[in-house]
């Protein structure tokens, strides 16, 4: 489904991402891990059109999406969530999802403005789907709360809900567990596993190793922008390079 070859990003003299390859088949749950500053979020930004690669190629479902704009890539089915500014703060939680639903509703402008019958029907469908999605991510009772006033964990869930409304084929989650408490982490992992079992392909950046290990079937490990390891959880756990990379940063911090 997703083929990344030689993806590279240079900032001046700094190589933030260096020649990374990645392949994801439909239905997989892949984890992207690595110490802080390894280039994981930069990689995401390159995949989803928020940064132009210096070189390399990204192919999604056979189509070349390298360097295309974010809305185009999202439209093709590769949808991401964000760590910061993940939601529309002034809208209610429900309105957040309704907006996302509108974009994928296939309505054109005239129908929207004139509020034709087709439009009104579709709007009802979107409304229902938005409510369902809110339930799915566990914040059904917060539907009419202003998104900006939600607790951090709920905001992140809403962010995932936003991505889900776009009917993604490949869901990219950027550190979904960051800043969450234990209960929220569990809820999120349950959600991720459930989405995966329902057939969604997922690529997950996560800093929380234990959590990532418990859901992902495969990993790509980055350090200093380069791939240092790839494989199953067992392979990664016992890979000396990986251990060194994580211990190395811990030691430096000490």
């Amino acid at each position, binding site marked *: 489904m997703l083929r990344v070859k030689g993806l590279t990003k240079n900032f001046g003299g700094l190589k933030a991402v260096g020649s990374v390859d990645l392949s994801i088949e439909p239905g997989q749950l892949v984890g992207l891990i690595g110490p802080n500053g390894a280039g994981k979020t930069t990689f995401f930004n390159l995949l*989803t*059109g*928020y940064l132009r690669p210096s070189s390399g190629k990204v192919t999604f479902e056979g189509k070349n999406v390298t360097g295309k*704009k*974010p*809305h*185009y890539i*999202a*439209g093709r089915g590769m*949808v*991401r969530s*964000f760590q910061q*500014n*993940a*939601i*529309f*703060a*002034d*809208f209610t939680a429900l*309105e957040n999802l*309704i*907006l*996302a639903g*509108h*974009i*994928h*509703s296939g*309505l054109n*402008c005239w129908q*929207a*403005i*004139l*509020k034709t019958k087709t439009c009104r029907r579709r*709007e009802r469908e979107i409304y229902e789907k938005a409510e369902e999605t809110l339930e799915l991510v566990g914040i059904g009772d917060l539907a009419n709360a202003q998104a900006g006033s939600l607790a951090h964990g709920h905001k992140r869930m809403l962010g995932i809900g*936003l*991505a889900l*409304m*776009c009917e993604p084929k490949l869901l990219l989650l950027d550190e979904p567990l960051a800043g969450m408490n234990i209960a929220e982490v569990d809820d999120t992992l349950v959600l991720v596993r459930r989405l995966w079992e329902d057939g969604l392909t997922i690529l997950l950046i996560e800093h929380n190793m234990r959590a990532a290990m418990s859901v992902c079937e495969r990993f790509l490990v980055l350090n200093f922008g380069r791939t240092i390891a790839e494989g199953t959880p067992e392979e990664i756990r016992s890979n000396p390079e990986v251990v060194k990379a994580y211990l190395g940063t811990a030691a430096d911090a000490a």
Partner: protein
Amino acid sequence: MNKTKRSRFGIAAVLLVALVLFGVFYSGDYVLHVGVLVMINVVLASSLRLINLSGQLSLAHGGFVTLGAYASAVLLTKVGMSSTWLALLISAVLAAVIAVVIGIPFTRLKGIYFTITGIFFVQVIVLTVQQWRSITGGNGGLQGVPRPDSILGIEFASKTSFFMLAIVLMVVSLVILWAIERSRIGMTFLGIKQADSLAESIGINTTVYKVAAFAIGGFFAGLMGGFYVQYVSAVDPTVFGFLPTIYMLIYVIVGGEDSFLGPMVGAALLTILPEVARPLQSWMPLLFAAILMVIIFLLPEGLVGLPHRLVGVLKKRTKEQPDATS
């Protein structure tokens, strides 16, 4: 949702009927003239606000009004077009087209940089109009622009006829602007305003929407420019230049930029004020600025927020009363 909606429509309908009846029965030219100006400014402010909805603070509006005005004037006097209505339409469309052309590069800019380019745009338009003497009459402008052609047997010669025409144009414009804002397009604008990057990630082509907002705003600006010129039969380069552009922004902010009603209130009030306070005419810019600052500091939600504030104050007072006596 339906009760407030119905009462809102009810009030709007009543006001509209009142406005029409006023135009039919009142015949004081001066008041009717001010009424026309109010309605023009209402549309200008409302269309400016639409652009703001998408998160872009535009100071280019006067440029589009000037474009529309001169397009009409030149088509009708120099080019000799026979239909004033066609000229009016062309003015609006031309303004929208130019808005798309400069919007495509401009809307890429964030916040204040977009605003700055608007300032440049207005200046270039004004300068061009001043320079291109052969076509635009330079600093003196153009005179002798014909009145609108008669339609359905109605001649446009009296102030009353223009008042009614203004009502029609204003209502049509506001209905369109309202419909857009109420639709998912308006919701998309608001989404873009709140979180540009996030909007992209859910598939919104923010450039297209931003340019669209700019173009729609430009369309109505151009339309009003064309109408104005057919109303006063003349135009000069600075009548919709930089300072008037700032005034349009002030109408929106003073009235309340977060409400559809806001620009209308602001435009009405600030158009009528200079007429009512004639002796203070030469102090108008200062007065406007003072009002602007009072609003920004004390009533940021604009004048439309005043009733709500007053109710809040009254509620606090009545709550305190029982305690005061004990």
